[in-house]
């Protein structure tokens, strides 16, 4: 019994809420990928094991599975802190901001970098709860500074918005080149 307890204490660690869910997910993920190894990698006959295209994915996936098993074991043997589902809800809620980010990236080629960035900054600042004039002015100013820094000064390669095509000739050229 004492040996079981000692083994338990060796695996014990500080465990945050949601840890065991993560441990299960990574184990299932590793086992699934490992089960696909014959379909997803090739084996060329006549070559040594080390030079096989399958070698490094196999090393990585076997390592992932072994470590995931031990991580799950550690999680199961460690003291649980309550708040698992609140934590998982927080992870899920971060998907909203991931969607904001993708939407922003999708809009830029149509609306142009400057208008999209200003609109995105203002809308997101409102979404996260700021209502003061200072916050709104700050978001617009910061968005403009970012655009000027990266597009105007550093000339970072970003697409010109299709919306810019509709602008008058002189302004169109400036917007296409610098904003």
């Amino acid at each position, binding site marked *: *019994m*004492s040996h079981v307890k*000692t083994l338990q204490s*060796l695996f014990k660690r*500080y465990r*945050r809420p*949601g840890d065991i869910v*993560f441990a299960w997910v*990574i184990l299932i993920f*590793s086992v699934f*990928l490992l089960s*696909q190894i014959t379909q*997803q*990698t*090739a084996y*060329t006959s006549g070559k040594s094991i*080390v030079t096989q*295209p*399958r070698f*490094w*994915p196999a*090393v*990585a*996936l076997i*390592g*992932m599975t072994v*470590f*995931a098993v*031990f*991580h799950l074991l*550690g999680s199961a043997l460690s003291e649980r802190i309550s708040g698992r589902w609140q*934590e998982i809800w*927080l*992870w899920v809620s*971060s998907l909203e*901001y*991931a969607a*904001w*980010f*993708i939407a*922003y*990236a*999708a809009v*830029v080629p149509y609306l142009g970098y400057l208008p999209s*960035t200003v609109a*995105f*900054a203002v809308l*997101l600042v409102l979404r*996260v709860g*700021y209502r003061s004039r200072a916050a709104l002015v*700050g*978001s617009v100013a910061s968005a403009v500074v*970012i655009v000027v820094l*990266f597009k105007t000064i*550093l*000339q*970072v*390669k*970003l*697409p010109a918005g299709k919306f810019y095509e509709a602008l008058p000739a002189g302004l169109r050229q400036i917007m296409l080149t610098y904003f």
Partner: protein
Amino acid sequence: MLARWDVMLALLVGSVGGVIIGAIPGVGPAVAIAILLPATFSLDPIVGLTMLLGIYGSSMYGGAIPAVLINTPGTAVNALTSYDGYPMTERGEAHRAVSLAYSASFWGGIFGILCLILLSPVLALIAPMFGSREIFLAALLGIILVILAHRGQIFAAGFLAMFGILLQTIGLDPVTYTQRYAFDLNFLISGINLIVVVLGLFALSQAFYLLTAPDSSPDAKPVTGRMSAGFKELLGHKRVATVASGFGVILGMIPGTGEFTAQFMSYTYAQKTSKKPDDFGKGSPEGLIASEAANNAVPAAAMIPLLALGIPGEALTAMMLSVFYVHNVIPGPQLFQNNIDLVYGLYLALILLNVIVFVFLLFSTNLLTKIIRVPTRFLGVMILILSFVGVYSLRNSLTDCMIAAVFGVLGLILKRLNLPIVPIILGMVLGGIMEVKLRSSLPRLNSPLDMINRPISFILFALIVLVLALHIRTLIKEYKARQPEEDHDLHDSQTR
């Protein structure tokens, strides 16, 4: 090489920008470097690298300000600074603490660079002795150290390092051109870009972290007095500052250990040798010096394995490695022979950035205390906007943005669970190096033992065995240390 206006401007922007970024809790150099990385691809190698070096080398100076004034480290490696810095602020010695932190940082920074310069002839001598098998073994040692350095999280770190290795194999096999874990999806066939992963894991995850957490706006009080005064006091603690910087240099060179271990070892040393060990954690100037000198000596030392072998020891140097690759400058044994002017240019840039930052901080501390007050969710919005530039400018690909968003969510989960992110990046970088170098070393090997039949490869192999043996020994010691307690419990229960 440095006497160009664009290089000097990049150094100035990087140094000052790094201090500001470091001073804002919740941003950190990794986020800033990840965002700026693609922007530097269009610049000259020396310009891009000096800008990133500026951020890397100066952020820890800035990170000391909130650590001392509001007990919140600006960057993770300033955590120990708050142990003694904040108690000093509480007893009305904020000016003394801040100026001491700047001076110790400067001491550590310059010490690290001097060591790098002094070691250069040795590096130039040893580096050509590293062939494919030696670099493979060095990368393997790096992976092992990165995993073992995360005590208490070794299994998670191991999983994440292996996940990183898997990520770099996705796409087409470089020799046979067969698909590996691409699931016939076009975006996977072309492979997963390191920069996209870096931006997702470091920048987007930080934005998601700040946006999903309650809003806060730290309040830092202004500091009055001459900031150069700390240097005089530092001279009274030369021994602590020098030994701490030495720890920073030695541990900075070893992949996976870096600032944290250097800080803890130098702090422990300072406490053990102090005449007032009880003051540590309650506002000891020696504790503050040990922490700041050690973490600022690391950036220069971390450049040693990167420049000499092309092996990054932590996430920031892994990001810099991609800048080298983009400009077709391959760090490693040949760099010292073919591009020595670039190497010396980087050394000089490191010295200059420390001087620029020190002078900047002497005059701008109170301005930085205002920047610290930026509300955290507002900061999250800005990081999200900046991350877009980094991801989208790579290939103008919406798919890259989606992949980065997925890694952003993964990074958020890891941060919330207090699990490390760095092993994924190092797994990707070192995994790629191991695959290429093992393949290229095979034609010269008749048996597996030939892998270690050269002096350097044998030393590296011996180091791997030693590191693993030491770790197993520590585990056995811990096991035995627990055993008597359990036996004692058993004995007690039997007598009852």
